[in-house]
């Protein structure tokens, strides 16, 4: 109950952060969406056992968050929230591939563990980037960007409504849970109550969603949210997109950590 309320507040906090006016916020959302897409493609193209060569990519989400004035604690919390899902996703990898691949000290590391590590790094990077993107763009503008890049309108609209109704369902659940809790005298919800609880919740959310949709239509909504004005030039948008894409390609083509390591050890020896 409390955690649900906290998650809703967090979402709203995200909306608030997205309203800031840093130059990163004012950048055309298409540039940010494209750069992120490029990032995800590069991230997915690595060999499944790569770990260390993924690390330089972390510069992107961190830079987005830093230049977008996203509070560090908030950003970290959001990223950590995604971590358990990634952990569970790859839980069987170490079991499936027990063949030792490398040694760290006296410890044999199997291919499975390496793949698990790689998956964790990738997952974390993806979550961090998505979080940073929404925080410096706003969900509405991410959708607007997707739309202007040629994503089907239907898809964009669904995404928008998904986001809006997340609040609706969240708030309705919160209210229902509170109403139940106050009459439950400390007894937790039995399995018999679940169907009717979720059923009535669904119906109420549905009705409310309908009212919201009606209210949207009453104010001339026609499928797209009006995009905000962007304060930066097209040159800046291109520079942002090409600059970052170039960086991702460099990360992919050259083993930066190893080169850096060689440089440092070469410099010290």
């Amino acid at each position, binding site marked *: 109950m409390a955690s649900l309320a906290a998650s809703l507040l967090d979402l709203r906090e995200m909306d608030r952060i997205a309203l800031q006016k840093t130059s990163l916020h004012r950048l055309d959302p298409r540039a940010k969406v494209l750069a992120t897409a490029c990032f995800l493609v590069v991230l997915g193209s690595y060999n499944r056992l790569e770990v260390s060569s993924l690390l330089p990519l972390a510069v992107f989400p961190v830079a987005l968050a830093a230049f977008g004035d996203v509070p560090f604690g908030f950003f970290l919390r959001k990223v950590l929230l995604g971590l358990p899902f990634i952990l569970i996703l790859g839980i069987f990898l170490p079991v499936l591939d027990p063949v030792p691949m490398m040694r760290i000290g006296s410890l044999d590391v199997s291919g499975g563990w390496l793949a698990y590590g790689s998956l964790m790094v990738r997952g974390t990077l993806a979550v961090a980037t998505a979080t940073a993107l929404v925080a410096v763009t706003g969900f509405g503008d991410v959708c607007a960007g997707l739309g202007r890049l040629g994503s089907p309108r239907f898809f964009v609209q669904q995404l928008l409504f998904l986001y809006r109704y997340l*609040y609706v369902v969240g708030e309705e659940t919160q209210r229902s849970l509170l109403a139940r809790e106050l009459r439950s005298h400390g007894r937790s919800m039995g399995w018999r109550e679940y169907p009717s609880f979720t059923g009535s919740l669904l119906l109420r959310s549905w009705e409310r969603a309908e*009212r919201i949709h009606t209210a949207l239509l009453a*104010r*001339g*909504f026609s499928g797209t949210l*009006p995009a905000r004005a962007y304060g930066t030039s097209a040159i800046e948008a291109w520079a942002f997109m090409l600059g970052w894409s170039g960086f991702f390609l460099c990360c992919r083509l050259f083993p930066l950590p190893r080169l850096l390591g060689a440089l440092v050890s070469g410099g010290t020896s």
Partner: protein
Amino acid sequence: MSHHLVEARELSHAYPDGTNSLSGINFIIRHGESVAIVGANGAGKSTLLLHLNGTLRATSGEVRVGDLPLNATTLLEVRRAVGMVFQDPDDQLFMPTVLEDVAFGPRNLGLAAQESETRALEALRRVGAEHLASKAPYHLSMGEKRRCAIAAVLSMGPDVLVLDEPSTGLDPRGRRILIGLLKEFTHTKLIATHDLDLVRQLCTRTLVLQQGKLRADGPTQEIFADHGLMEDCGLEG
């Protein structure tokens, strides 16, 4: 062309399950009139309101706004002309800030960002809520939300204001401010409410609905003085 006129001709509506929610409603509302729609719960007030901007379509009969009959081709124009303020402002306000929310309507009308913002600020000024412009709607009190929801409709430059239970959930002070505010508007107003005291202060004319039928239509004072009628319609107060 004047839109300051709402007309219902033999308006009837039946829900898909067959329940008749409105039957044979007739009225004409003229420029600048302030009209209350009263009736017990389930009398059809909300259903009637939803017909005025085309959210619900008449099963038979028609609604006219200005010179336009309400149909698929005039729908958008009618929705601009008829500003609907919903009962629960939380259903209406959804953008991250009040200013953006109030500018949402004008943006949908195709106005440029700057123009929309100017209009939004003007609308907020009219409801005395400029200071809330950069706030998030969910941080507002009920009274503030209601005023912003009204501004969100005013910003579209409507000719007719339709309000569903505008005083619900307001504390006495919030309610007084709202009534003062609505008094100042010269718009044609249609107010569905249970708040008879608000009706006395704001509306010169009252429509009484009873089980989907228009039971009475006349000057508020006369209608309220007819105790038999009021009691019969569940409105004794």
